[in-house]
C-alpha cells in the first residue's frame, strides 16, 4: 500500500528541477566521449531515425519504379514505366533491406530506447559496462560507414539475404557490405551482453524479477538472442567473404560446395533476428497498454515467460524459410510444427494486452494510438504467418508478395509502430519537452492508413502469384502495385510531419512534468529530463510496476 505514483517508496518527479543530463556537461567532446547511457541512447535515437529515413528513401524509389509496369500486354514499352535499369533497381531493394534490417530494426528499440530506459526502470545509475556501451555505438557508426561505402562504391544487388552462389561471384561491393554487417553484429552483441548483466546485477533493492517492468523482460529476452544468434551470422558472413576472396568453396557448387548450406547458416541467425526485432516492440506495448489504461497487466507471468519462450523457440524454426529450397521433406515437417508452436506465446501476448484494457480507464494519447495500431497490425502480421507456416500453402506463397506483406506487417506494423509509440511515450522523459498532441495524432492516423494502403494489396497480389524482387511485372498486377505505391506517399507525408513536430518540440515544446502520463515504473519517479546519475539515492521498490489504484480509492488501495 503506497501513496506514491510509482513503484518506488519515494517520488522525486516533482522536486525542484536540477541540472539534467543534457545540460550537465556541454560541448561536442562531452557527447562524443560520454559514457552516460542516456546520452548514448539519444545519439542512437537520432542515428537510427536517420537510417530509417534513408531506408524509407530506398523504399520510395522501389515503389516509384513499381508504380507502373514497364511493358503492356502486347510487349510494347509503357512510357514512364521504367524508371531504373534492372541492375539499379536490384541495388535499391537490396539496400532498402540491408539498411532497414541492420541499421534500423535490429538496433532500433534496444539501442535507442532500451539504453535510455533500462537503467532508469531498474533503479540503476547506468548499465553494467558504460564504456562498452559507448563502444557499441561507435562500432555501429563504423559499420554504417562501411555499409554506405559499399553502397556507393560498387553497390550490392544480392538482396539482404546474400544467397549463394549468386553472391559468391557477382560483381559489386559484396565483401565490404558483408563485413559492414559483421561489424554491426558486434554492436548488437555488446549491447546484449551489457543488458543481460545489468538486469541480473543492478536491479534496485526490492525489485525482484517479478516486479520488473515487462519492457525489461522483453529487452532481456532480446539480449539473450542477440548474444547467442549474432555470432552465427558473424561466421556466416565471414565464410561468404572468404568464399569470394579465396574461393573456399563451401557454398558454391562449382567449387564443390552446397548453396543450401548457406541458407541454413544464414537463417539460423536471421530467424532469431526477427525476434530481436519484435520482442522489444512487445515490451513497449506492455508499458503503453498499462499506462494508458491505468491498469495492471493481465497475466504478468504469462507475458514475461512468453518472451523467454519466444527467445528459445525462435532458434528452432529457421527452416521455415526453406520449405522449397531442396531441404528434405521431413525437415520441412519438423520446422512447420515448431513454427506453429512459436505462434502460441505471441498470441498469448496479444490477448493479454487486449484483456488489460477491460474495465480500465483508457486515454487516447498519441502513444496509445500507436499501441492500438500495433495491436491491429501485428495481429494481421502474425495471423498471416499461419499461411506461411503451413507447408502446403507455403509452396504457393513462398517468394511472392504475400511474404513481403507478412513481414512488413510484423516488422513495420509491429516493431516500427511500437518504436514510434515508445519514442512518443518517453520523449518527455528524454528531452523534458511535450510535442504537439494534435499533430502527433494526425501523424499516427496517416501512418496507420498509409501503411495499410501500401501493404494490404500486397497480400492479394502475392496469393495471386506476383513474385517478389521483381523489377517489372505483368500488367495483371498493375492495379495492386499502384495502390501500394500511393500508400507510400501517405506514409511519407506522415513521417515527415513527425520529424517536424518532434524537432520543433525540442526548441519550443512545453516543459514536461516528471510524470506526464501518470505511469508507475521508476523512470517516472525522477524529473524530466533526469539528472546525470539518474538518482541521488537508489530507490527502494515495494510494489509491482503496474499496481495502479482502483477507481474511488484516490490511489490508496489496489485489487
Amino acid at each position, binding site marked *: 500500500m503506497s501513496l506514491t505514483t510509482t513503484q518506488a517508496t519515494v517520488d522525486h518527479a516533482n522536486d525542484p528541477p536540477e541540472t539534467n543530463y543534457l545540460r550537465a556537461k556541454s560541448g561536442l567532446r562531452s557527447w562524443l566521449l560520454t559514457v552516460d547511457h542516456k546520452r548514448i541512447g539519444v545519439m542512437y535515437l537520432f542515428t537510427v531515425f536517420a537510417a530509417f529515413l534513408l531506408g524509407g528513401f530506398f523504399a520510395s524509389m522501389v515503389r516509384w519504379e513499381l508504380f507502373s509496369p514497364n511493358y503492356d500486354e502486347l510487349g510494347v514499352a509503357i512510357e514512364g514505366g521504367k524508371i531504373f535499369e534492372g541492375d539499379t533497381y536490384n541495388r535499391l531493394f537490396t539496400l532498402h533491406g540491408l539498411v532497414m534490417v541492420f541499421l534500423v530494426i535490429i538496433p532500433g528499440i534496444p539501442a535507442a530506447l532500451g539504453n535510455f530506459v533500462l*537503467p532508469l526502470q531498474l533503479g*540503476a*545509475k*547506468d*548499465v*553494467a*559496462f*558504460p564504456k*562498452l556501451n559507448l563502444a557499441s555505438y561507435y562500432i555501429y557508426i563504423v559499420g554504417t560507414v562501411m555499409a554506405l561505402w559499399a553502397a556507393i562504391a560498387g553497390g550490392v544487388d544480392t538482396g539482404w539475404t546474400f544467397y549463394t552462389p549468386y553472391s559468391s561471384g557477382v560483381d559489386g561491393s559484396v565483401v565490404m557490405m558483408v563485413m559492414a554487417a559483421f561489424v554491426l553484429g558486434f554492436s548488437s*552483441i555488446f549491447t*546484449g*551482453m*551489457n543488458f*543481460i*548483466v*545489468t538486469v*541480473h*546485477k*543492478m536491479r534496485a533493492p526490492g525489485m525482484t524479477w517479478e516486479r520488473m517492468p515487462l519492457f525489461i523482460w522483453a529487452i532481456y529476452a532480446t539480449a539473450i538472442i542477440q*548474444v*547467442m*544468434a*549474432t*555470432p*552465427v551470422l*558473424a*561466421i*556466416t558472413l*565471414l*565464410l561468404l567473404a*572468404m*568464399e569470394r576472396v*579465396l*574461393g*573456399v*568453396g*563451401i557454398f558454391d557448387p562449382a*567449387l*564443390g*560446395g*552446397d548453396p543450401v*548450406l548457406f541458407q541454413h*547458416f544464414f537463417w539460423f541467425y536471421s530467424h532469431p533476428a526477427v525476434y530481436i526485432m519484435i520482442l522489444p516492440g512487445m515490451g513497449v506495448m506492455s508499458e503503453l497498454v498499462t499506462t494508458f489504461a491505468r491498469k495492471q497487466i493481465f497475466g504478468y507471468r504469462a507475458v514475461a515467460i512468453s518472451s523467454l519462450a519466444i527467445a528459445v523457440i525462435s532458434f528452432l524454426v529457421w527452416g521455415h524459410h526453406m520449405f522449397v529450397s531442396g531441404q528434405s521433406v521431413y525437415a520441412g515437417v519438423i520446422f512447420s510444427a515448431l513454427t506453429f508452436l512459436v505462434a502460441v506465446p505471441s498470441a498469448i501476448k496479444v490477448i493479454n494486452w487486449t484483456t488489460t484494457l477491460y474495465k480500465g480507464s483508457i486515454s487516447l494519447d498519441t502513444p496509445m494510438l500507436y499501441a492500438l495500431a500495433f495491436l491491429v497490425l501485428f495481429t494481421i502480421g502474425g495471423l498471416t504467418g499461419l499461411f506461411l507456416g503451413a507447408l502446403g500453402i507455403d509452396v504457393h506463397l513462398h517468394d511472392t508478395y504475400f511474404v513481403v506483406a507478412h513481414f512488413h506487417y510484423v516488422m513495420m506494423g509491429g516493431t516500427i509502430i511500437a518504436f514510434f509509440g515508445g519514442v512518443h511515450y518517453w520523449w518527455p522523459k528524454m528531452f523534458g519537452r511535450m510535442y504537439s498532441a494534435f499533430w502527433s495524432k494526425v501523424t499516427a492516423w496517416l501512418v496507420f492508413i498509409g501503411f495499410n494502403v501500401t501493404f494490404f494489396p500486397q497480400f492479394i497480389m502475392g496469393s495471386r502469384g506476383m513474385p517478389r524482387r521483381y523489377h517489372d511485372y505483368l500488367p495483371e498486377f498493375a492495379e495492386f502495385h499502384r495502390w501500394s505505391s500511393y500508400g507510400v506517399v501517405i506514409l511519407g507525408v506522415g513521417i515527415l510531419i513527425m520529424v517536424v513536430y518532434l524537432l520543433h518540440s525540442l526548441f519550443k515544446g512545453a516543459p514536461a512534468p516528471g510524470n506526464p502520463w501518470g505511469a508507475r515504473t521508476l523512470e517516472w519517479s525522477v524529473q524530466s529530463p533526469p539528472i546525470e*546519475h539518474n538518482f541521488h539515492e*537508489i530507490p527502494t521498490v515495494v510494489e509491482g510496476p503496474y499496481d495502479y489504484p482502483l477507481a474511488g480509492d484516490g490511489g490508496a488501495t489496489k485489487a
Partner: protein
Amino acid sequence: MSTIVKHHVAHHFYDRHQESASAKMGIWLFLVTEVLLFSGLFVAYTVIKALNPEMWKEASATLNTTLGAVNTVVLIASSLTVALAVRAAQTNQHGEKNKQIAGLLFVTILFAGTFLVVKYFEYSHKFHEGMLPGTHYAFDGIASNNAHLFFGVYFLMTGLHGIHVVLGMGLLTWVMIRSLKGHFYKDYYTPVEVGGLYWHLVDLIWIYLFPLLYLV
C-alpha cells in the same frame, strides 16, 4: 614496484563485489558468443567431411601430428601459467607479488608466441606445397576430388583461432603491464581473471581443433 594502486569502484556500482560479479558475468557471456562463432565452422567441418569422407582422410593425413601435439601441450601449459597468475593476484596482499603476476603472464605470452611460431612453420610448409584453400589450391599429392575444401576449413579454423591467439597476447600484455604497476591485488584482480578466462577459451577451442583436424 612493490606497492599496490588502490582501485576505485565505478560510480554506477554499489561496491566492488557487484562490480567484479558483473565483469565475470560479462566475460562469460562473451565467451558464449565466441563458442557460437566457432560452432559455425564446426558445422561446416561436419558437413564437408560427411560429404567427402575419402578426400578428408587423405587430406588430413598431410597434417603434421607431432607439431599439432606440441602446440596442444604448449597451450595447455599456457593455461596453467595464466591460472597461476590469477592465483598470484588473488593472494597479492600489498604488492609483494606484482612481479610474480607479471612473470607468469609473460611466460603465458611466450607460450602463445611459441604456438604461433609452430603454426608459422606449418603454414609455410603448406604454402610451399600448394596446399592452399579454394582457388589457390595447387597440390597434386591427393587423389580425391575437392581437397581444396579440406584446406579451406583447415585454414579458416586455425586462422580464426590464430587471430584470437594474437588478440589474447595483446590483452595479456596489457594486463601484464598494469600488474607491474601494482594495479592488481587481493581486493581487485578482475582484469587478470577476465584475461585468464578468455585465454582458457582460446586453449579450449584448440583442444577441439587438434583432434578434429589432426587425429580423425
